């Protein structure tokens, strides 16, 4: 299975697949003990007008992974994988529109005072073969993901759990023992790919059994997957009778199929396509805001970016409006050098940064790097990358900085730029802010693309994870974000919309769910008028 999340170079150039916005929150703080709370995910089913009608088949087109696709939910990697996994399986929790964890198969979770032991009560739910979802299934699923011989994507997210010590208290209660206090543990339960499968399940190609809203009918890798309503679904049976996922890697093919009435839902459209069809009455365009952070990653451990004055100068060089307009065709909003606009704990009180070339020049002069030359690594691996790089090059030239844009291979870009180079294009799908920090900004983070290593910053993170009170924790996050805003390595210039196209008779699609969250690509609340 191919790669990367949230990739999307587009265009006739025959790219393949669409990708996934990675997720995978590692450890979380999250204190909240969310007792009892049986609420289904956040604001699902927006855009629903009138009374839902039962029945019908919806065909949804996604970019996919070709003949290597699998229905193994733990191998979920692409958007298409995630959408299929979500139809067939459930996680213990999932992310709401603000990326906070919402209970799903878990009915409630309750930590001890040390925040390193969590009791998760399961709701009454059944798998498609009628068997109840039990604590043993949960432990089996998590142990499978954490198998050291495998490389499942969610493995890193489950790292805080000591699975040997964790146990089933009774059929519907799991006690998770953690390696350290983890206030945001519910984020772990909502991690990307952390689906619950029946104990012993190994082969998902033939007839996968899950507890999700739809049950398996057929699957042809790289072509289509058909599922049908599961009447006993714990969150209410879906309105649709059937749901068919079809794969069309070319954006133009997805649009044509939608316009030609061959599908009712097309995932991942280009901004130009959206503009051409928005408000024309033929199809409906939905923009999922804040779905993909757009940034440049500066390596803070090496020249010239080891000097924080240079980093600040680069923050001030960026004309964010121009970048959003040029590289995202206007489909998005500007960023403020922080991840997670609109998400829980986002520090939205900080002043919006704007271009200030004089101050940038002044800072560069003070840092002694006038006439600075930098190489910016980019690649057509994601929409707008190369465009953003050349726009930024021109903006930097106005501040006397010579940026050389180097275009690399899209198949290996993320590995290539993790440790090498000094400045690179970057983007990220939606995930909780805490996950962003733990995966990318701690000394031992696995994908620390800005090489941000600060013991005091690590300590703040540990402090947040050990803080039970949510308000206090928010204050710690704010401190961390202030630091990143002032001198971090991510120049976050924008947040791209994720664009969907739908037939006029499709109702109940959430309009406020960033890609990868609970209500994104969620079809059990969708119906056909």
């Amino acid at each position, binding site marked *: *299975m*191919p*790669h*990367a*999340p*949230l*990739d999307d170079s587009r265009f*006739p150039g*025959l790219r*393949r*697949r669409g*990708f*996934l916005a*990675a997720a*995978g929150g590692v450890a979380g703080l999250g204190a909240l003990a969310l007792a009892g709370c049986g609420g289904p995910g956040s604001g699902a089913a927006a855009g629903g007008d009138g009374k839902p009608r039962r029945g019908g088949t919806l*065909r949804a*087109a996604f970019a996919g*992974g*070709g*003949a*290597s*696709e699998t229905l193994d939910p733990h191998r979920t990697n692409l958007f298409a994988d995630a959408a299929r996994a979500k139809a067939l399986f459930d996680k213990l929790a999932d992310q709401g529109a603000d990326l906070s964890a919402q209970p799903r198969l878990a009915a409630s979770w309750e930590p001890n005072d040390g925040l390193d032991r969590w009791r998760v009560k399961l709701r009454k739910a059944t798998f498609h073969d009628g068997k109840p979802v039990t604590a043993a299934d949960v432990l089996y699923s998590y142990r499978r993901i954490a198998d*050291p*011989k*495998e*490389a499942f*994507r969610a*493995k*890193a997210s489950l790292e805080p759990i000591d699975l040997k010590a964790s146990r089933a208290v009774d059929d519907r209660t799991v006690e998770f023992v953690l390696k350290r206090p983890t206030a945001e543990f519910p984020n772990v339960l909502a991690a990307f790919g952390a689906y619950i499968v029946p104990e012993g399940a190994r082969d998902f*190609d033939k007839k996968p059994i899950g507890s999700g809203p739809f049950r398996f009918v057929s699957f*042809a*890798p*790289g*072509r*289509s997957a058909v599922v049908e309503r599961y009447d006993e679904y714990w969150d209410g049976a879906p309105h649709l009778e059937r749901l*068919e996922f*079809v*794969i*069309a*890697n*070319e954006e*133009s*093919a*997805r649009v*044509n*199929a939608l*316009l*030609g009435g*061959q*599908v009712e839902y097309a995932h991942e459209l280009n901004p130009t396509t959206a503009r051409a069809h928005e408000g024309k009455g033929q199809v409906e365009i939905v923009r999922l805001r804040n779905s993909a952070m757009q940034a440049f990653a500066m390596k803070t451990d090496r020249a010239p970016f080891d000097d924080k004055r240079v980093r600040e100068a680069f923050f001030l060089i960026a004309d964010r409006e121009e970048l959003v307009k040029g590289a995202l065709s206007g489909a998005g909003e500007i960023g403020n050098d922080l991840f997670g606009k609109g998400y829980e704990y986002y520090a939205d009180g900080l002043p919006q940064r704007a271009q200030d070339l004089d101050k940038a020049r002044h800072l560069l002069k003070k840092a002694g790097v006038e006439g600075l030359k930098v190489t910016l690594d980019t690649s057509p691996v994601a929409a707008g990358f190369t465009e953003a790089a050349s726009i930024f090059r021109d903006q930097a030239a106005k501040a006397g900085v010579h940026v050389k844009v180097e275009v690399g*291979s899209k*198949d*290996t870009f*993320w*590995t*290539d730029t*993790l440790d090498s180079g000094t400045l690179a294009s970057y983007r*990220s799908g939606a995930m909780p802010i805490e996950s962003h920090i733990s995966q990318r900004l701690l000394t031992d983070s*696995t*994908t620390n693309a800005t090489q941000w290593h600060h013991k005091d910053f690590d300590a703040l993170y540990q402090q947040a994870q050990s803080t039970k009170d949510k308000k206090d924790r928010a204050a710690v996050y704010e401190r961390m974000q202030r630091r990143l805003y002032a001198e971090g390595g991510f120049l976050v210039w924008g947040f791209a919309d994720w664009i969907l196209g739908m037939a006029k008779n499709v109702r109940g699609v959430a309009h406020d769910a960033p890609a990868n969250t609970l209500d994104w690509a969620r079809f059990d609340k969708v119906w056909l008028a």
Partner: protein
Amino acid sequence: MSGTEALRGTGMGTGTAHGTGLRAWVVRRLLLGAGQTVAVVLLVFALTEALPGDAAVALAGDQPDPARVAAIREALHLDRPAHERLVAWAGGLLHGDLGTSLASGRPVATYLANGFGPTLLLAALTVALLIPVSVGLGVLAARREGRFADRLISSATLGVYAVPEFALGVLLVTVFALNLGWLPPTAVGYGTDLLAHPAALVLPVLVLLARPVCSLARLVRAGMIDALASPYAAQARRYGIAGARVRYLHALPNALAPAAQQLARTIDWLLCGVIVVEALFVIPGLGTVLMNAVAERDVPVIQGLAVVFGLTAVVLNLGADLVARRFTPRAAVAA
């Protein structure tokens, strides 16, 4: 994959059959073809290895956690030296085992089998229409040489030949599928069961036909004109043989010899995956399999495709040479 580009060319040595008989010639050609296929496979392996990154890096995608990449690499045995992996793969091949995909763990044979169906269907339909249409146009143009019909056919074929498949495809979809609504714009969701949806095949086949029809028709026309002007055609006419008989039994076979070579190249192009058409119309054939396999650095799948494509090219060229010998035995003798 761009066989139609070559309007002219020689096969792989038409004239080695001096007195040794057809069978020996075929055997030699097959041995040579096997050697060529091996060379292709080795070359493809070397080139794939030379690509930056491997299956583990491709699989890790935007989550290039070094520990995870290393774990994937170990699980896929990518940490073994390249020549060991090649030998292991070749050993399996001798037992008819094409190996398993790195990306999915499924047998490579299922990849090829699933992709081959749609590809073969498209190729068969295209060729079934290509031969009568191009020969018909070529003969018609030759008969009316220099007159209106000839000028129309010649300029139209030249014009259409200049349009790339992608542009033509987009144009046809926009007009016939989206504006007029006569045909479905894509074959999305039809899977391998394309025959059950013949309407979805019309546009892809038209796109595939466009350029080969032009090149073949022009070859047939040129061959016919040459042949009709040749001494033996004149001689036949002096004997009072009817014009139609001269045209179709004497001149046409000579015109078809070069066309057969071109046709083989076209079929080769069709069978080796026409990526643009597959992508545009969402037809999951071999071209799509190849695209994905390269992006995933899925070496066993790429190798399997190289074997199939190599053998296809060898068999088709051999077939074309046999046809050429049959139609114009002189060529073999003279060579």
